C-alpha cells in the first residue's frame, strides 16, 4: 500500500514540505489541577518524529510518557487539564484545536495502540464491529465494505481464519491476538503516526517478540512514524531509531538509540540499564536497582528531579544538584546527544564505575576501557 501524502483523506492542507518531521512537539507542558494541588505531569518537553522513523520514550510509571502522547491526540479533558507549548501534527497545531478538527485527526492520521488490550477493547462489541467502526468514522463506506476491510486488517496482522474470528468478542481472543486486533484497529485508516503505549507490557515474552516484529513490518510497509512508549529498554533497542528517557515529567536524555544505550550520560539512564536482567550474560552480575521512588509530581524536588535517588550527587561540586535544574544540553558526545545532568565527566564515570558493575564483559580487561566495538559507536548515526 502506498502512502500518497498529497491525497489526504481528512481533507487537511498538505504540509509545506513532506520531508519535515510528521510530529513536532515543542515546549509541551501538561498540568492537572487537583484538590491536592497542581500535578505537573509533563514540563517543557520537545521532540520530533519523522515518517518511517521510530521514537522510543522510556521511563518509569508517572514519568509523563503516556500523558504527553495522549496530548498529541488531544485526549485530555480540557476542563481538567492545562496545556501549553506546541504540538504540530503534519504542520497543523493541535493545542487549542477544535474538537471537530481533532476528531478528524484521531484514529485517522494519528492512531494509538493501548497497553492492555483486554480493557482497551469494548467487551460487548465484536472485534469486527470495533475495527469497522474506526474505518467508517473516517470513510464513507457501507457496513459490508467496512467489515471486509476489518477482515483484511485482521488477516494483515496475522489472525488466523479472519473471516470467522471477525465476529468474535475480545474475551474469545488470546492476549496476543487481542493486541494484534488492537493494532489492526489502529492501522485500519493507514495512519501516518502510530503511538504505541506499552504495546507489549501485558503479554508474555514470546508473544512480545511477535508483536514487536509485526509493528516493525507494518511500519516498513506503511512508512509511518512510530512512537513507542515503554519502560523496557529491550523494546527500545529492538525498535527505536531515537530514544528519549523521561523522568519526573521531563526529558532527561535524548539521542540516537544506539548512542543512548552504549554511551548514556545521565545517572538515571545508567540505573535503567543496570536494572535489566541479562539472560545470556554472567549469572553473577548483580542487578542494580534504582533506590527510592519516582518523584511526586505534586511537589517535584528542587533542582534536578533525580537528585534524591542519584548515587553520584557528591561528584558535583556544591549544592548544584539540589538547587539548580540542569538544562537539557549536549554532553561530550556532540550536538545530537543531549542530557539533563550536572556531572562534568559522565563518560569517565560510566566506564570506570558503572559499567564494571552492571556489565563487566563490556570492559576490555587489559586497558580497563570500553570494548572497541562499543566505543566505536557514532553518536550522530541514527
Amino acid at each position, binding site marked *: 500500500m502506498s502512502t500518497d501524502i498529497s491525497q489526504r483523506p481528512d481533507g487537511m492542507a498538505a504540509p509545506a514540505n513532506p520531508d519535515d518531521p510528521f510530529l513536532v512537539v515543542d515546549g509541551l507542558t501538561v498540568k492537572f489541577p487537583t484538590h491536592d494541588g497542581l500535578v505537573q505531569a509533563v514540563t517543557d518537553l520537545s521532540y520530533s518524529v519523522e515518517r518511517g522513523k521510530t521514537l522510543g520514550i522510556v521511563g518509569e510509571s508517572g514519568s509523563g510518557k503516556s500523558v504527553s502522547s495522549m496530548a498529541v491526540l488531544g485526549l485530555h479533558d480540557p476542563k481538567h487539564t492545562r496545556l501549553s507549548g506546541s504540538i504540530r501534527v503534519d504542520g497543523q497545531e493541535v493545542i487549542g484545536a477544535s474538537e471537530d478538527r481533532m476528531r478528524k485527526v484521531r484514529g485517522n492520521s494519528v492512531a494509538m495502540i493501548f497497553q492492555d488490550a483486554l480493557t482497551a477493547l469494548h467487551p460487548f462489541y465484536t472485534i469486527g464491529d470495533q475495527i469497522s467502526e474506526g474505518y467508517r468514522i473516517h470513510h464513507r463506506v457501507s457496513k459490508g465494505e467496512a467489515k471486509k476491510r476489518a477482515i483484511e486488517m485482521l488477516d494483515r496482522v496475522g489472525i488466523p481464519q479472519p473471516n470467522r474470528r471477525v465476529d468474535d468478542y475480545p*474475551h474469545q481472543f488470546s492476549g496476543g491476538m487481542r493486541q494484534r486486533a488492537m493494532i489492526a484497529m489502529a492501522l485500519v485508516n493507514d495512519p501516518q503516526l502510530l503511538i504505541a503505549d506499552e504495546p507489549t507490557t501485558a503479554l508474555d515474552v514470546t508473544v512480545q517478540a511477535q508483536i514487536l516484529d509485526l509493528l516493525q513490518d507494518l511500519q516498513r510497509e506503511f512508512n509511518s512514524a512510530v512512537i513507542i512508549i515503554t519502560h523496557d529498554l529491550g523494546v527500545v533497542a529492538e525498535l527505536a531509531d531515537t530514544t528519549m528517557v523521561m523522568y519526573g515529567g521531563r526529558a532527561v536524555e535524548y539521542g540516537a538509540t544506539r548512542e543512548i544505550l552504549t554511551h548514556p550520560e545521565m545517572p538515571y539512564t545508567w540505573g535503567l540499564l543496570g536494572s535489566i536482567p541479562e539472560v545470556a550474560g554472567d549469572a553473577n552480575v548483580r542487578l542494580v536497582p534504582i533506590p527510592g521512588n519516582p518523584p511526586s509530581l505534586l511537589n517535584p524536588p528542587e533542582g534536578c528531579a533525580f537528585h534524591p535517588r542519584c548515587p553520584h550527587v557528591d561528584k558535583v561540586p556544591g549544592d548544584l544538584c539540589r538547587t539548580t535544574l540542569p538544562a537539557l544540553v549536549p554532553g561530550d558526545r556532540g550536538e545530537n546527544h543531549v542530557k539533563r545532568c550536572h556531572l562534568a565527566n559522565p563518560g569517565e564515570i560510566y566506564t570506570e564505575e558503572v559499567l564494571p558493575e552492571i556489565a563487566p564483559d563490556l570492559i576490555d580487561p587489559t586497558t580497563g576501557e570500553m570494548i572497541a566495538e562499543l566505543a566505536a559507536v557514532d553518536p550522530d548515526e541514527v
Partner: protein
Amino acid sequence: MTGFIVRRLLTSILVVILTSMFVFVLFFKGLGDSPARNACEKLHNGRCPAPVLASIKHEMGFDRSLASNYTTWAKGIFAGRSNVYSDGKGYNCPAPCFGISQMTGNTVWGDLKQKYPATMTLAVGGASMYLVLGVILGSLAARWRGTPADRLLVGSSLIVSSIPYYLVALLAWIYLSLQFQIFPNTSYYPITQNPGKTFAWMLLPWLVLGLTNCTTYARFTRGQMVETLSEDFIRTASAKGVRTNRVLFKHALRAAIVPVITIFGLDFATLLAGTIFTEQIFSIDGIGRWGLAALQTPMDLNVISTVVLVSSILVVVANLLVDILYSFLDPRVSIA
C-alpha cells in the same frame, strides 16, 4: 444454554412449590379454625351452634390432615375442583382453581383475570416511563458531571426519593385531578375497548409512578456511567475519533446499562404484583386494590393467598428472565 434454562426452570419450580406450601400453611392452617367459625357466625346471625360448626369444619376440611388439605388445594390448581364449600354453598371451581372469593362468590381465578389488565397496564406504562426517563437523565448527568445541571439533578432526585411515595401520589391526585381538573378521570378503562381513553385516564398514575421512581434509576445510571466513562475502552473509542455523544450513548451506555436492566427486571416484577398505593389513590381496579379489599374482616383468604402466590411466582419468573437476559446483554457471560 438450554441446559442452563432447564436447570434454572427446575429450581424455579421448586421455589414456587415451596412458596405455595408456605402460603398454604400461612393462610389456611396457621389461623386455626377461625375461617370456619367466621362462616358459621355469618350464616347463623352471630351465633354458632356446635353441630353446625362441626359440619362446616368438615366441609372445609378441618378434620383432615395438613398434607391432605394441601394436596386437595394444590391439585385443584391444576385439575380444578367440584363442590368447593364457601358460605354454606357448594361451588364448581374449574382449573386453575384458587378457591372461591367470599367477596364476590366468583372463582378467584375469574376475578384475577378481570383485575389483571389494570395492574398490567399500570405497571408497563409506569415502568417504561421510569426506566427511559431514569436512564436518559442519569446519562446526561454523567456527561455533565460536576456542573450545576448535574448537581440539580442529583439534588432533586434525592428530595423526590425522600418524600414518601403515597404523599406524592395523594398530592398529585388532590391537586392535578380534584383541584385543577387537569386529569379529571384517573382509573382504568379497558384497553381493548378504547385505548385512547385508557391512556387519558392512566396518564396521571403513570406520571406519578414514572417521575418518582425515575430518580432512583437516574442516580443508579449516573453512577454506572461515571464508572464506565473511566474505563480504558472509552479512551480507545475517543482515540478512534468517535463523536462524544456516540461514545456516551453507544459505548458507555451499552456497558453501563447491564446492571440497570438487572435491577429493573426485579423492580418490574414487584410492580406487576400490584401497587397498593397507586391503585387505591387513583381508583384503579387492579391486583393491589383487590388484595387490600380482601384484608377487610372477615378476610377473604383465598384472594389474599392467591395474590401472594401469584406475586411470588412473578418475582421468580422475573429472576429467571433476568438471568437469561444477562447472557444476551453481556457476551462474556456464557451459560452453557
